[in-house]
């Protein structure tokens, strides 16, 4: 397997939640996510998958009880130990949450919103950004003609693709997807999956998922997180057929994982 460039990587990343009692959700994770690939993060519930994902665009900043140590690097630039403004950092690392989340505005404005914040587009240019983003998200044909309707009026599957389009409109390098198909029916889920597959040639996608089948279908690389630690990260075929770690083998087989020291 040839070495690909790394789009985003963590270095000894530790996240501790200090709300009621101190819980170390990530215990020193160092992992790189390759450029223009789709990497899924899998693991049992509560093992730190979403925590890892949110630390990749500093979403823990709004949670006072979360403490982040270590750092994340996007194209060699640190995310945490830096003077760069956080909105500029987040713009480069898009995020689609698990719950379909339209903004309280029209379909058009949902997509144009971020773009309008960053640049002075003319109306024609903005129309162009919106159409391109919606096309990339495979939603254009379904919403063209009712762009002024509220975003919340779409179906859950359409909203997830609207969220993708919204992220794409600000031209990110990395896309973070947090179980984006788990709230969807199988048909809608498939549409979102297909969209992600076409996007990965242009964007580096990191996706948290519960579904091993989904990983097998669309991932290039799989990272297995267990109890806040990275167990292993490897190409999708190796991962499911010949994993290194015994815990991975057990997880893939659907067995209880016994923590081997």
């Amino acid at each position: 397997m040839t070495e690909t460039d790394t789009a985003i990587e963590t270095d000894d990343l530790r996240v501790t939640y200090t709300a009621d009692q101190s819980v170390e959700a990530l215990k020193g994770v160092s992992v790189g996510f390759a450029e223009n690939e789709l990497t899924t993060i899998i693991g049992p519930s509560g093992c730190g998958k979403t925590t890892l994902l949110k630390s990749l665009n500093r979403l823990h900043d709004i949670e006072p009880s979360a403490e982040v140590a270590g750092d994340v690097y996007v194209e060699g630039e640190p995310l945490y130990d830096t003077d760069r403004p956080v909105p500029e950092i987040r713009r480069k690392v898009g995020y689609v949450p698990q719950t379909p989340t339209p903004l309280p505005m029209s379909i058009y404005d949902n997509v144009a919103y971020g773009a309008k914040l960053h640049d002075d587009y003319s109306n024609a240019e903005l129309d162009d950004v919106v159409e391109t983003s919606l096309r990339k998200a495979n939603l254009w044909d379904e919403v063209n003609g009712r762009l002024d309707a509220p975003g919340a009026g779409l179906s859950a599957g359409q909203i997830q693709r609207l969220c993708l389009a919204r992220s794409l409109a600000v031209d990110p390098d990395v896309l973070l997807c947090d179980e984006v198909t788990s709230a969807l029916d199988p048909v809608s889920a498939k549409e979102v999956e297909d969209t992600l597959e076409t996007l990965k040639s242009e964007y580096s996608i990191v996706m948290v998922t519960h579904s091993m089948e989904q990983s097998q279908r669309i991932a290039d690389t799989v990272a297995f997180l267990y109890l806040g630690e990275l167990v292993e990260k490897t190409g999708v075929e190796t991962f499911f057929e010949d994993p290194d770690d015994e815990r991975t083998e057990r997880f893939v087989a659907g067995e209880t994982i016994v923590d081997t020291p």
Partner: protein
Amino acid sequence: MSNESTRLRRRLAVEGASSVWFRAAGYFALLVFGVIGATLVWKSLPVLTEYSLVELLTSATWDPARNSFGFMPAIVGTLAVSGISMAIGAPIAILTAIYLAEYATDPWKTVISSFVDALAAIPGVVFGLVGLIVVVPFVGDYLAPVFGVDSAGQGILTASLVMSIIVTPFIVSLTVESLEALPLELREATLSVGATEWEVTKHVLLRAAGPGILSALLLGFGRVFGATIVPAMLIGSQTLVPETVFSPGQTLTTIIVNDFGELMSLPLTQSALIFVGLLLLVVVWLFNFAAMLLRRRLERRWQY
């Protein structure tokens, strides 16, 4: 077996009885509203048959001793006090709520929230007393002279200033509640396209919480509109159409408070004062109704 069926029968009997109870409690609310409305209409009839509605609402002369019942001064006073109080109180309240819900962290968040809640629990009459000691001399001795107006300190503005403080904590609590009820994902999704926290608040959160904030403002308005004791203490109680905001005046509620004691023995005056009560009821009801329609519109438009 038979034990089981008695048990089921008993459970179903309780079920049947409970639904009757709840329905009765619900209808009771309607009944109370009906009784109040009917009483007010019935008792207002004498003055309404004697004078035309237009005359009552537009005449500026209030002199019950001579059977002159013009409500213009009180209507203007009520509108002025409600308007000024909300104009001052609402922005302060919404800014405070945004700070508490979105920016403040502990310990300040807890400390300030608890003081806001405590403010809401202070009886109006206490605000009235503090207003008499602090706000009346402030307005009379400092504020009015700046505008070249002669004022004893009691008047429309004084009552409005104190009412704007009274109304703030209610609007703050309800606005904070609507903002905090919004899902975290809304913030995360908006931040992730590179928005600043203020942009998230302004473009997304205030809209998504808009219907709730509207309800908060409405509740605040209702409180100012129906406020009685504080205006009665601070407005100066002159039943004249106020010339400036420093003029003493009267509101629909204070006119009842001031005159109901001795004048209630005169049937026509009694009827006139009860008509004021009817007016308050109708306006508040219409206002609630309009707000409900507006809220529905906003909910559709700013759906998330």
